[in-house]
């Protein structure tokens, strides 16, 4: 079926990471403005794909999350007046491009150059995106009926991530993933820069989305279009690369380390990286015997290392395509 689709894009706008990404010393430097121009083409392509397709763009800035753009406001004439009409471009594209660029630069201006930088508010952006989709999927509680569901858009969320996992966001991210599963939202992740994100890998795996680590960053647009533009129904025909090795490790509650083998409280399922006498979450005291036994068998604490991931055949296809790109 040719259903319309909704796409929520979450931009990770961590200034430090982006400045690192733009460094010419990188094998494939990608400055932010190049990224933005690729992104705008991708967003326009999504709207071009079908008249009814809708879009929302959220930004995860240090310490705060912002809704930059949504298709709703584009339909609103009052905001659209600001945009100069142009006979040479489609108005929806024009509105999108202008307002997105304006608002992002405004947020960066407000941000200034702080000495210490908070981690980007990915959770805030993600939860907002889910709430937004929830509203789209349940327009009016009174009118909902099974037949109507065919008219509702297929929802997707695309996370463009550059910063590493913030371990204290583990639980909220997991909660968001489960809500996404309930609402049948596909979470796609494109890791543009920085180390692989264990949490986002899980997010993509659990919601049937795809996690792609961008190797040839200059080919960003081609990656975006080939992997993240197809709707879930098209993905049944044209396969898109998925991360084959998914890491199912969790972060421990005490030091926020990511652990292979953890000690789990049977009452509240808190995870600890070493045996503790009292659960810090629910204050349960653990029996001495167990502690002794566990301390005996305990292996010397292993600093968790990122597991190696293999290059996949699909990645090689990408390299081939990248060579073709201008």
């Amino acid at each position, binding site marked *: *079926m*040719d259903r*319309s689709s909704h796409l929520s894009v979450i931009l990770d706008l961590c200034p430090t990471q982006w400045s690192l990404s733009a460094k010419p010393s990188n094998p494939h430097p990608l400055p932010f403005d190049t990224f933005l121009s690729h992104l705008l*083409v991708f967003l*326009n*392509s999504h709207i*071009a*794909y*079908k*008249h*009814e397709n809708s879009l929302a763009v959220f930004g995860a800035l240090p310490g705060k999350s912002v809704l930059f753009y949504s298709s709703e406001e584009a339909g609103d*004439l009052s905001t659209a007046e600001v945009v100069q*009409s*142009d*006979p*040479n*471009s*489609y*108005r929806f*594209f*024009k509105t999108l*491009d202008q307002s997105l660029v304006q608002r992002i630069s405004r947020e960066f201006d407000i941000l200034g150059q702080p000495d210490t930088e908070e981690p980007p508010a990915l959770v805030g952006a993600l939860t907002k995106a889910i709430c937004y989709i929830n509203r789209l999927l349940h327009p009016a509680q009174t*009118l909902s*009926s*099974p*037949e*109507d569901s065919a*008219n509702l858009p297929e929802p997707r969320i695309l996370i463009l991530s550059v910063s590493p996992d913030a371990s204290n966001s583990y639980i909220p991210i997991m909660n968001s993933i489960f809500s996404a599963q309930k609402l049948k939202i596909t979470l796609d992740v494109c890791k543009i820069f920085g180390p692989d994100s264990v949490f986002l890998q899980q997010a993509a795996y659990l919601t049937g989305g795809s996690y792609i680590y961008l190797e040839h960053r200059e080919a960003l*647009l*081609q990656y975006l*279009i*080939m992997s993240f*533009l*197809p*709707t879930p*129904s*098209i993905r*049944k*025909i*044209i*396969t*898109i690369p998925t991360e084959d090795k998914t890491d199912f490790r969790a972060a421990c509650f005490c030091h926020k380390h990511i652990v292979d083998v953890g000690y789990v409280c049977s009452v509240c399922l808190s995870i600890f990286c070493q045996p503790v006498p009292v659960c810090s979450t629910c204050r349960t005291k653990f029996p001495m015997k167990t502690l002794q036994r566990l301390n005996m068998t305990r292996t010397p604490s292993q600093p968790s290392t990122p597991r190696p991931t293999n290059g996949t055949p699909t990645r090689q*296809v990408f390299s*081939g*395509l990248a060579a*073709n*790109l*201008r």
Partner: protein
Amino acid sequence: MPAVEELSAKDVGPHPLLAFLQSQPKKALSRLYQRPSSCLCIFRLLGPLERQIVMNILWLDASIPASTMSSWVVREGKKEYDQALIELSRIDVLVNSATELTLSATFKTSLRQAITGGGSTGSFGVPLPGHSEHPTPSIATLDTYALEKWESILHYMVSSGTGLPSAKPSAGVEFLLERSGLMAKAREMTSSQITSTGFQFLLHTPHDQLWALLLQYLEMSEERKTDIVEVISFLFMLSTMELGKEYSVDTLTKAQEHMLSDLRDYGLVWQRKATPRRFSPTRLATTLTSSLPPLPTATGAGGAGDSKGEGFIVLETNYRIYAYTDNPLQTAVLNLFINLKSRFPNLVVGSITRDSVKRALMNGITADQIISYLTTHAHPQMRKNKPLIPVTVQDQIRLWELEKNRVKSDEGYLYTSFASLADYEYVLKHGRELGVILWESAARRCFFTSVEGHASIRLFIERSGQNQQPNRG
């Protein structure tokens, strides 16, 4: 439910305009593709898979080996994928080549331009700022105008069948209706009568109706030797325009300016007077390349923002129909296949009877069309039922249709004058084994076989040394 399956099958099928484009010469297509707005619209009319293929190779400069692309396709999807490639090359979007995939150069440049903006083709229309004396018409005004125009056309069609007087649309519309075979002038009458295709047309969704008429219009323009590229690209330009804005006539070509008056008759554009320098597209025009309802809710009571509240029919298992509408057009359409009993300010009550359905069948409407009309216009309350249309009613409508087809005709051969009953049964048994016997009568010692069976039966008889002459039936 067969009715629902049919509906969805119709959604998936390729757009009627694409078939029209296929029939056009390459040169015309490549001229059409010079305009970014046309490329964008054609792109939107394509099937979902085709759109993805176009997107995948849009930003590649060199052509990509076909094998690389097909390695992305899962085995079960191969057939659809190949079909999509064929469709694309038929309308000359894809350059025809077995080993490489490339978009045609014009299409690629224009679609890229559409997506990134820029260029100087002005294909998205030149918007004008609001006029000081005559304010831009509000969206509500445009909606009412479009609805009024469109419904008057349909109403004209319906009422021509019943003989009730109704306002005649403009000559252009009338000609178009006749041309498309929806209406026909009977010899002895002055006014035209609705045909059976016309009745079927009435039960389609507004979107399909609109495109059917526009395609007819395109063919008509072709015959009139108008430049077809101008016509199509103007339609596409309209569909990318924005509702509630005014656009300038100055940039249009002669042919397009001429079109304006026709389109005004169909309700696609709004103009303040007959020959102004500006025009506004209506919802009918701006939703051409989408699947959104092209008309505001026809009942009018539900508020215009409520796009899904279209359903108004409640059908009960006892064949009674309650239609919450005060719209004369909808009432008239219903009247095609139900017996109206009573009318209230916002409600029409009637029932489906054998006679009413027979009447519809005589008019050339099929049972499936009736059922699909009832399905698409079912009241939200009814959508809770499963199946949506009561099975009894559905079956009965189909049975009434079958009644019409009581006599079935098959071509075949009649075998008669067998010498003995034993001979007869011997041959008959062979025929039964082959499964070619359509009818038999032991008393009269004759049977009837299908055309395919004739040769083998005759061979069998000849081989058995019999001399019966098979008589042709």
